[in-house]
């Protein structure tokens, strides 16, 4: 019975292919847009998650200053509230912290002979290596002795090594930073690009004490990077660090923190959530066009029913019941909507691949969204086809046969 209705509907749709196609167009575009938008959103989410994952989820970053109303902090060095002793205290007094290192950063020219290279110079402690899981390819990392003696030693990253030394071995060579000679004690292993596209290998690391005293001339530090013993203990470490620092900085109850602790896994989750929100938002906007497509179907079907009044009369005269007419028109609507859905899905997949290729935006097709879109388009067909189908089935055959 249903197969017969299906066959009748298909024949009827084939009779006017252009009109059937134009009716489907709303659904095609709607579904295609939903698929493509969600793919873009999912791609963004995945990329963010990958970036954050590469940084490690047991890391905390402590910055000076506080969050103002607008969410902006008062700037690096705006409040000179972090001290090297803070880092040491964190490491000594909190067992679930596996390591803490002060960090200072500044862009400087590094000179070797007549070659120079502008790079980021970072002042770090020995713990930095373990915290960031950064291998040393040759030579050794900064030692506690280097820190205590404000030694003029440096490790250079792969990019710096290549640009200043080419194929020559840089270990033991002298490089100049701000006219101060530094002896290269090692080459860092490759790290590649960071999440926001910067070259992590374009770096020179020196002891933080040397950075503070000889390069920057400051007594405070810009950051403390902390590793918790595991991802699970990170939040607890966060809390303990906060109370320790409040104590050390002699902050009263109720006063704002003069520091900020950034938990990378919170950032990861927040970024992931906002990417999800974006995907949902884009998907919802695109869904509106599905609704419009459905209205288009209803509109065209109403016109179609009026135009085919005679035909409906003929069908009734040769024995079609109300139910047969209703079923025929609903199936026509469903077939149009579902076919539109399939074409839209193909279009959505095609355009998200195209976007990936041309705009170099990451896109990720979600099979569940495809299935949902297909079901939704079928439902749109049923819902928007219902009223015209009912109108058709309620025609009086005598009037219908007389219709001009």
């Amino acid at each position, binding site marked *: 019975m249903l197969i017969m209705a299906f066959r009748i509907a298909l024949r009827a749709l084939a009779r006017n292919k252009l009109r059937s196609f134009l009716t489907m167009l709303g659904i095609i575009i709607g579904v295609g847009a939903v698929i493509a938008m969600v793919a873009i959103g999912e791609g963004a989410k995945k990329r963010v998650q990958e970036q954050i994952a590469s940084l490690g989820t047991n890391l905390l970053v402590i910055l000076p200053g506080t969050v103002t109303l607008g969410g902006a902090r008062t700037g690096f060095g705006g409040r000179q509230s972090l001290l090297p002793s803070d880092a040491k205290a964190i490491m000594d007094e909190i067992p679930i912290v596996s390591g803490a290192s002060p960090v200072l950063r500044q862009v400087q020219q590094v000179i070797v002979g007549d070659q120079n290279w502008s790079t980021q110079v970072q002042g770090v402690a020995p713990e930095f290596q373990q915290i960031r899981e950064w291998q040393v390819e040759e030579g050794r990392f900064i030692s506690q002795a280097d820190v205590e003696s404000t030694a003029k030693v440096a490790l250079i990253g792969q990019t710096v090594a290549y640009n200043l030394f080419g194929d020559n071995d840089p270990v033991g060579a002298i490089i100049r930073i701000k006219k101060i000679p530094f002896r290269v004690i090692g080459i860092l292993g490759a790290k590649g690009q960071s999440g926001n596209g910067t070259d992590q290998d374009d770096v020179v690391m020196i002891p933080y004490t040397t950075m503070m005293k000889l390069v920057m001339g400051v007594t405070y530090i810009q950051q403390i990077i902390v590793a918790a013993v595991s991802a699970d203990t990170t939040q607890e470490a966060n809390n303990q660090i906060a109370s320790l620092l409040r104590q050390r900085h002699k902050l009263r109850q109720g006063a704002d923190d003069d520091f900020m602790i950034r938990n990378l896994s919170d950032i990861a989750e927040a970024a992931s959530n906002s990417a999800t929100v974006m995907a949902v938002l884009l998907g919802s906007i695109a869904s509106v066009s599905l609704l419009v497509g459905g209205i288009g179907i209803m509109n065209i079907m109403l016109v179609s029913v009026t135009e085919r009044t005679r035909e409906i*009369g003929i*069908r009734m005269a040769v*024995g079609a019941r109300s139910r047969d007419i209703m079923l025929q028109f609903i199936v026509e609507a469903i077939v149009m909507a579902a076919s539109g859905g399939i074409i839209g899905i193909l279009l959505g997949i095609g355009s998200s691949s195209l976007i990936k290729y041309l705009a170099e935006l990451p896109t990720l097709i979600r099979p569940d969204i495809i299935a949902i879109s297909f079901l939704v388009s079928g439902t749109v067909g049923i819902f928007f086809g219902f009223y015209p189908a009912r109108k058709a089935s309620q025609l009086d055959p*005598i009037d219908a046969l007389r219709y001009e």
Partner: protein
Amino acid sequence: MASEMLEHHNPPAPSRDSDLGFDRRAEVIQIRDLHKTYKMGDIEVQALRGINITIRRGEFIAVTGSSGSGKSTFMNILGCLDRPTSGAYFLEGQDVSRLSSNEWAHIRNRKIGFVFQGFNLLHRTSAVENVELPMMYNGFQSKDRRQRALAVLKLVGLEERSHHLPNQLSGGQQQRVAIARALVNRPSLILADEPTGNLDTKTSVEIMELFQNLNEKEGITIVLVTHEPDIAAHAKRQIVFRDGMIISDTRKN
């Protein structure tokens, strides 16, 4: 007398001869005291005022009368498209005037074949597909639909144009397709409403000869409405309507 007949009448179920699929009962149609009244605003129009008629199997009847005589209303009721206000219509012994719309649809599908003045074929649909149309609503799927449709097209002389579309066929050919469609489900009765109205004289004669052929050779019962006397002359019995009543009922010898 008539009302007593209606109260006690208990028609047996019609039997179907499986060979030809045609019911062999003698009386196809019995109409007793049929009335039809329309309300048009405040005015009541009495379209039929007490029609009594019996039509037997194999008859070829022409129904004539001017517009407003009630003949179209009569045909609509005969065709189970309209309900009488009072009176009885027995089709093969079954009182069909009291049936539901769905049951009517079933009767229109199996027992009645319509032929219209304007042919009423589906556009952009081939002749054979048009003839298959009633079989699509049969309630049972037949794989031999195509075969049966082609056989009936052969009967009306159009087997070579079975795949032509209506706009590729002449008026006479289209009407033949319509006749084939009307025959395809082996109806008890063919109802034709001015079937030659849109055809030229020569083609009209051809179509009437086809009807005569079907009536004489295949024994198909035909009721045909026309306002042209020379068309009516092809039939064996002529019924004349006026002002909602039958004023004359004559048979040819």
